[in-house]
């Protein structure tokens, strides 16, 4: 009997949380498309997300590209199919690795920072103060972050694509002794627009997930420093999980129909 009440309670909590997130999401979308727009806030978030995340994204995609080249080579050598390395690197990086790596890295960097900043604003009543100064917190705080996330993640991923492929090229040419020109020509010939586009669409979705959950957790944080800490952890963990789930769903949609 106790078990049943426990299960029931978990279910109720789950649907309550899902409902609250749903309302928050629809409010956010509404405020992203209705004026006033705070362009200065959007710009500063674009710099925060786009520019300052470049180093981590560049580093992770570089090494991801490198390790894929190495692993493909050792694996494919068994079937004497080493020539496929450049194509595998291309597909793996553009379709999966760059968007997922960038998504996870930005979730750790930006999602956490947003939850902490907005959470602190919540517990110190700064969000209340905003609304008393005739400024809608959704428009001033949340919409700019979400817009910047949707716009900037694809840019980061595009750069990550290039760097990741370059990482594969470095390993291919300097370690595995492929011919530099033919490696590049192979890559170029094999490239399909869909590989790149699917990665960029994924990136946009991830940008939305990261910023939305960062803002949601911060906005609803309770208590003092501890509440803000919990909000930060939740933002990163939930965004990371959702990124992996949506990555699968989007791959399914793009390549399996």
């Amino acid at each position, binding site marked *: 009997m106790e078990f049943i009440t426990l299960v029931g309670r978990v279910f109720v909590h789950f649907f309550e949380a899902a409902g609250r997130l749903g309302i928050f999401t629809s409010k956010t979308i509404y405020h992203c498309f209705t004026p006033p727009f705070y362009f200065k806030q959007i710009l500063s978030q674009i710099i925060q997300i786009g520019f300052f995340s470049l180093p981590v994204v560049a580093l992770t995609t570089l090494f991801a590209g490198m390790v894929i080249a190495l692993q493909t080579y050792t694996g494919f050598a068994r079937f004497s199919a080493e020539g496929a390395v450049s194509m595998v690197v291309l597909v793996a990086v553009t379709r999966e690795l760059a968007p997922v790596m960038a998504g996870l890295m930005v979730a750790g960097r930006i999602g956490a920072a947003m939850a902490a*900043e907005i959470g*602190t*604003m919540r517990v*110190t*009543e*700064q969000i*209340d*103060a*905003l*609304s*008393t*100064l*005739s*400024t*809608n917190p959704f428009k*001033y705080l949340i919409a700019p972050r979400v817009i910047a996330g949707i716009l900037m993640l694809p840019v980061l991923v595009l750069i990550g694509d290039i760097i990741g492929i370059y990482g594969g090229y470095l390993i291919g040419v300097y370690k595995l002794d492929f011919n530099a020109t033919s490696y590049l020509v192979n890559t170029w010939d094999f490239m399909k627009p869909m590989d790149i586009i699917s990665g960029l669409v994924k990136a946009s979705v991830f940008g939305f997930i990261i910023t939305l959950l960062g803002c949601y957790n911060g906005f609803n944080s309770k208590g003092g420093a501890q509440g803000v800490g919990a909000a930060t952890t939740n933002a990163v963990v939930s965004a990371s999980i959702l990124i992996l789930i949506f990555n699968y769903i989007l791959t399914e949609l793009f390549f399996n129909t």
Partner: protein
Amino acid sequence: MPTTQKSLLKRTVDLLKGKEETPPMIKLTDVHKSFGKKVVLNGVNLEVQRGESVVIIGGSGTGKSVTLKCILGLLKPEKGSIIVDGTEVSDASAKVHEQINSKIGMLFQGAALFDSMSVWENVAFGLMQGKKMSRKEAYHIAIEKLAQVGLGEDVAHLDPADLSGGMKKRVGLARAIASSPDIIFFDEPTTGLDPIMSDIINELIVSCVKKLGATALTITHDMASARKIADKIAMLYDGKIIWVGTVKEIEKTKNPYVRQFIAGSANGPIQMAVKADE
């Protein structure tokens, strides 16, 4: 400043007409608010007339700040009506609140300064965002308001994090009055200030009400401050307003709760929960 003249004129007209005729600026009727099982407001009734300065007193944790937040729409009461300047706000939409709140200036108990902005930008925020004033113009007004709370131009460029508690409070006060609102809420304006600065702030509040014709609702524990700024004092106890009267009346009242509160005595009908078995 034309707005000042207008509100002065309005106040004079109000006075000539006799105050009874004009509806109250703020009217709370039977307001209830609980958090979970904890009942905080249990039928609050309060009227604040136009151009009047009302002080709310009451023990710590009785719901004074919650009352202000209900009026501002930051918290939603479960029951009751709150009318601000003729508009029902207790179940109003965000748009209506935004419109009503543009007439209200609020000093938060913890100052609630934006820590991503400098001091002067905090003060000028409402002017630049709400009233679409240019940065330069807003800067001058911010400096002027900061001077009124005893802070110089050197402070204006600091970050809020670099200020002392009392300085933060005064910046919050400057921000609350920056856009010359019709209604001003002060949540413990003199807490954490030295006696001299407290008196300067008291005078500033009085001048906002008397000279600018604003309506003020102030929360304070400081009876000296209450006597100085209040036209009317209301006492909140156990979720209700149990007593309302003028400063003169409060000295003579026989109400045991009020007497204990203004005497600051531990003995009386008000029992604070300080025993473990409470």
